[in-house]
């Protein structure tokens, strides 16, 4: 499917060429094969979901994508270029941002500082200008602050700007974490279960933010999610994993009709 360079979604958005391509990725931890020979691509401007039962290897896949794990076999292409064995911070500098399944905010800092941390990859000033503050460092700080304030407005978290994130409720922490990832203005945004542990209202809010991010900033998004309803609603294309293997890939409708996927989720009748 989708062998052509671009395609158009049912709601009329044009999806461009591949941003990231995973080719024959195999990841092993000792004898355990977490990911087995998986290939798929993420195209510019699309929302790509990775779903699958627990332990299917989804989070490992995300960790491969942002360089936290290095696969034993296979290659990752980013913007058409083969990616070497980079450290995660180098991959962040290339424009990949992510959020975590278990919130990984900086607990000792305020909401504002957390999101400001997302701008670190864009920092041009050096240690010496930080030391003197006046001049370049202060100007950069104000410029970053302006961008961060836009994100704060966008996520509707103005009132908690200076609150230490440790004091915030779970749903808001998830939102701050999304803000920190957005502040990096990534060309690829990875979301690891952005809606885990949320109630229906919070899920609706988060879905809206994800769609708005994609719509307003044109950010390419890859997300892992368990809630099938949400995935079917917001994703353009879905990869389905089970036991480290890819068992389905396509639009939500195609995936739902796939017998392997149904078997993985509902179980197979053994007779």
């Amino acid at each position, binding site marked *: 499917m989708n062998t052509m360079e671009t395609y158009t979604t049912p709601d009329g958005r044009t999806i461009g060429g591949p941003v990231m391509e995973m080719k024959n990725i195999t990841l092993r931890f000792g004898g355990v094969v977490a990911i087995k020979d998986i290939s798929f691509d993420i195209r510019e401007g699309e929302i790509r979901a990775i779903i699958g039962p627990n332990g299917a290897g989804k989070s490992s896949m995300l960790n491969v994508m*942002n360089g936290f794990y290095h696969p034993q076999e296979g290659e990752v292409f980013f913007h058409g270029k083969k990616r070497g064995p980079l450290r*995660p*911070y180098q991959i962040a500098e290339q424009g990949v941002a992510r959020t975590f399944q278990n919130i990984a905010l*900086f607990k000792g800092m305020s909401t504002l*500082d957390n999101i400001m941390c997302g701008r*670190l990859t864009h920092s041009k000033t050096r240690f010496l200008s930080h030391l003197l503050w006046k001049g370049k460092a*202060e100007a950069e*700080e*104000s410029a970053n602050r*302006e961008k961060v304030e836009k994100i704060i407005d966008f996520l509707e978290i103005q009132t908690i700007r200076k609150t230490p994130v440790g004091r915030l409720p779970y749903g808001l922490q998830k939102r701050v974490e999304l803000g920190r990832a957005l502040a990096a203005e990534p060309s690829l945004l990875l979301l690891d279960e952005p809606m885990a542990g949320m109630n229906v209202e919070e899920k609706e809010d988060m879905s809206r933010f994800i769609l708005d991010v994609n719509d307003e900033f044109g950010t390419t998004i890859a997300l892992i999610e368990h809630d099938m309803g949400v995935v079917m609603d917001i994703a353009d294309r879905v990869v389905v994993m089970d036991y480290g293997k890819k068992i389905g890939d396509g639009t939500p409708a195609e995936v739902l009709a796939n017998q392997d996927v149904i078997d993985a989720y509902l179980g197979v009748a053994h007779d």
Partner: protein
Amino acid sequence: MFYREAGDFTTNYAEDNQTFPIRLDRMGYYATMIVAFCVVPFFINDYWASAVLLPFLIYAIAAIGLNILVGYCGQVSLGSGGFMAVGAYASYKLMTSFPDMSMIIVVLLSGLITAMVGAAFGLPSLRIKGFYLAVATLASQFFLVWLFNKVAWFYNYSASGQINAPERTVLGFVITGPNAAPAVTYLFCLAFAVGLAWLARNMTRSNTGRRWMAIRDMDIAAEIIGVNPLGAKLSAFAVSSFYIGVAGSLMFTVYLGAVEVGEAFGITKSFLLLFMVIIGGLGSIFGSFAGAAFMVLFPVLLKNVLVGQLGWATNIAAHFEFVIVGGLIVIFLIMEPHGLAAIWRVVKEKLRLWPFPH
């Protein structure tokens, strides 16, 4: 009622980022600076300088340094005594090898040398953290003290193994040795303390500080949002050691004048500095000053009360001092683990509403 922020509006981000956004705080800061620079030097005498003000300022510099490492970057260090010794011995070697070198340059160079040594000893932090790192830095403490005792080159082969600061002047004023005027040594240390505190504030509110704090709060997440852990940790070790080296240099040249390494820069000094940082408040520049003030002033105060007022024997008072200070530290850690800086914050928050809290 009196301490309030009503009517203080910031209209741009630069104003919002300033160190004292509340006007009253700003006034208090300026007043303190004027008193410290323009009033105190006229009233200072030998007792106040050597018992209270010099140790307070020097320990404050060292505490800021340790706070950068422990409070901002989250890397525990028990090697600060050893790094102070590096600063002191670097000053001694510089002063004796280059007699014409300005004392300001001697102190700064000693800081830079300590920064390099600190960064080298910080290398294990890339692989180990927490208690294990504390033990590794403890090793550096013992190694450095052993080195300065063993290698005679460091103390210029003197028979006693001590180092003595030769007399030097700054702008025509004698700054080291027994002939230095207390006002001069005080102003010299004050200038360093204020300048270094200002630089520390700048570092910690900019992206350098954010990188450190990101590593402190969650190193894996920090790396994934684009912080190079090697750069952040080593820069924290280097900057922290610079401060501690400057403090060690000042302690030897301006304050003590003569130093025997095991006695002046032993493990107790490392613990003393760690106490200051923890009692003052981790991750706070003000807390570093508060912690240094507490650990320097409190024993002096206690001694004056016990010996001067109550007429106890000096040795009994000295022992009781340990008991009381030790007990207070324990009580402190239980009641307010975030230190004096947190207490100060709470007091300010209460003051905003006082006396009409509803």
